[in-house]
């Protein structure tokens, strides 16, 4: 196997998930190299050596300054064709998902996505992919090379090798196509650090669309206060403007693992699940008995959160006062 791992960077750091995928690729054996694309990012490249990259290919170009997928398709296509990589791995993110799918079409290559493991069985690369709300696990593979894979976020932890040194850094150039540069980023997201951090909380009470209206977040806040915990929200309600982004849990939000996570009016779609599944204890309240969250909640309650949450808040308060 000659694998290339896409190394995603943000504000001067290599993303943890992409280093995790790099560590995993190194354990599968064969040659493992990284690719880093951006502007003034070359200094980050050598550090990937500690996580198993023998070499990191860098394209440092002002046209790659913004995290947009299409010019990155051009750059990785050039690298794959010139260097003959047979496998290209991505840690899933908003950027890398679009990049991987664009690259698949460009190279006419197979792309398996949402993988939670990748193994070599009988000399063949096999991806493990949960399907149908994680109720079935599917073994997937590729019928041609290069093989492209998107790994579900948070799947692999970065593992620094004890005696691993810096990666060899090699610059490369690529033509960028006109259409790849047509989309432009006019404002770029920054992580907002206002408000209490949910990442450190032992107890989290989270609200989703089932709350019905932004005012009902008061119910969530009251329960969180009674339990001495923090408030979290799903992407749907954050996007709808009901609650600030800093409180968002899930794929495009924070990843949390509190001792107790109480999900109220949250269906538990996969985007949310990846952000909270490692919580020690999960309680879910939802009126839809078929909500996917009941599949992985330690205690699932089918019922109206508008009735149950205020009662629970009151009971917790009484107990605390006793």
């Amino acid at each position, binding site marked *: 196997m000659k694998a290339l791992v896409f190394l995603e960077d943000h504000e001067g750091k290599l993303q943890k998930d992409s280093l995790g995928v790099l560590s995993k690729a190194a354990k599968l054996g064969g040659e493992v190299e990284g690719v880093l694309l951006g502007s003034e990012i070359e200094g980050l490249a050598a550090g990937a050596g500690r996580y198993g990259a023998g070499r990191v290919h860098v394209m440092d170009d002002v046209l790659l300054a913004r995290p*947009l997928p299409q010019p990155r398709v051009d750059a990785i296509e050039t690298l794959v064709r010139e260097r003959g990589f047979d496998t290209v791995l991505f840690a899933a993110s908003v950027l890398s998902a679009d990049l991987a799918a664009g690259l698949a079409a460009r190279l006419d290559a197979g792309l398996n996505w949402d993988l939670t493991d990748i193994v070599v069985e009988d000399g063949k690369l096999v991806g493990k992919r949960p399907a149908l709300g994680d109720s079935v696990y599917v073994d997937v593979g590729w019928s041609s090379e290069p093989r492209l894979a998107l790994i579900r976020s948070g799947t692999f932890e970065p593992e620094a090798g004890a005696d691993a040194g810096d990666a060899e850094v090699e610059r490369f150039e690529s033509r960028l196509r006109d259409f790849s540069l*047509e989309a432009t980023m006019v404002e770029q997201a920054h992580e907002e650090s206002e408000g209490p951090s949910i990442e450190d909380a032992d107890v989290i009470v989270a609200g989703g669309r089932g709350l019905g209206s932004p005012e009902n977040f008061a119910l969530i806040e009251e329960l969180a206060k009674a339990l001495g915990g923090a408030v979290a929200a799903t992407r749907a309600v954050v996007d709808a403007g009901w609650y600030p982004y800093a409180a968002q849990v899930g794929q495009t939000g924070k990843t949390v693992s509190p001792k107790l996570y109480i999900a109220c009016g949250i269906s538990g779609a996969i985007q949310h699940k990846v952000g909270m599944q490692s919580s020690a204890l999960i309680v879910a309240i939802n009126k839809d*008995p078929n909500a996917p969250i009941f599949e992985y909640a330690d205690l699932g309650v089918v019922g109206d959160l508008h009735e149950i949450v205020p009662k629970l808040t009151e009971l917790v308060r009484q107990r605390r006062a006793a």
Partner: protein
Amino acid sequence: MKIAVCAKYVPDASTSVRIDPQTKRLDRSGEGALNPFDVNAVEEALRLKETGGEAAAEVVIVSVGPERALEAMRKALAMGADRVVLISDDGAVGSDLVATSRILAAALSREEPDLVLFGQQASDSDGAILWAAVAERLERPLISQVAELTHEEGKVRGKRQTEYGYDVIEAPLPAVVAVSDAINEPRYPSLKGIMGAKKKPQETVSLSELGLEAGEVGEAGSRTEVYALGEPPARGDTQKIEDDGSAAEKILAFLQERKAL
């Protein structure tokens, strides 16, 4: 402005869905529906058409699926879309990402829309990447995960959420945009809309009519394979109760028992 909405025919959410152990594909023999995430894309297309004020504006639904998918796509017509193009062909069965994107790109090239819209994800496969493969094949700029979309003077601007907050991306038309399900609250079809939907143009197209060869799409044109189906790892004990008025007490007792208070 001509807007094409790519829509998927998916198993109805109220039916239980399974993977056929023989074909290792999703069993699509049951009731089907328009993918709920695509309804947001249809709604956004209709809003753009309505606020644009152009007499010639058109919203066309483009889908790949079995013949009976036409019926599900009528929901989009009832909401106000103008017509449906369904690519239905036995040769398309088993298409993966690269093959499906080839079919859609061929159909979209024939339509030449100013804007191609996708919904956030497919409710059956959780796939949320097809748009990028289609944008690549059409050689058009892409904006994904859009939670707010505006259109002015030959360009679109999308505000979208990433891992770090919100960013704003602009692209000249023609472009491909994937919308998030938070972008709007879709309308319900009116009775008049439902009555009128059947009479709107609904075209079924074969692969050869799109100039596609059998080997380019379907299983032969796909680059991924499914080897085996397995059980998910054990989750430990999960319990589910119905609220009979005492749910709050039961949750409290559970938290005490697990020493979570």
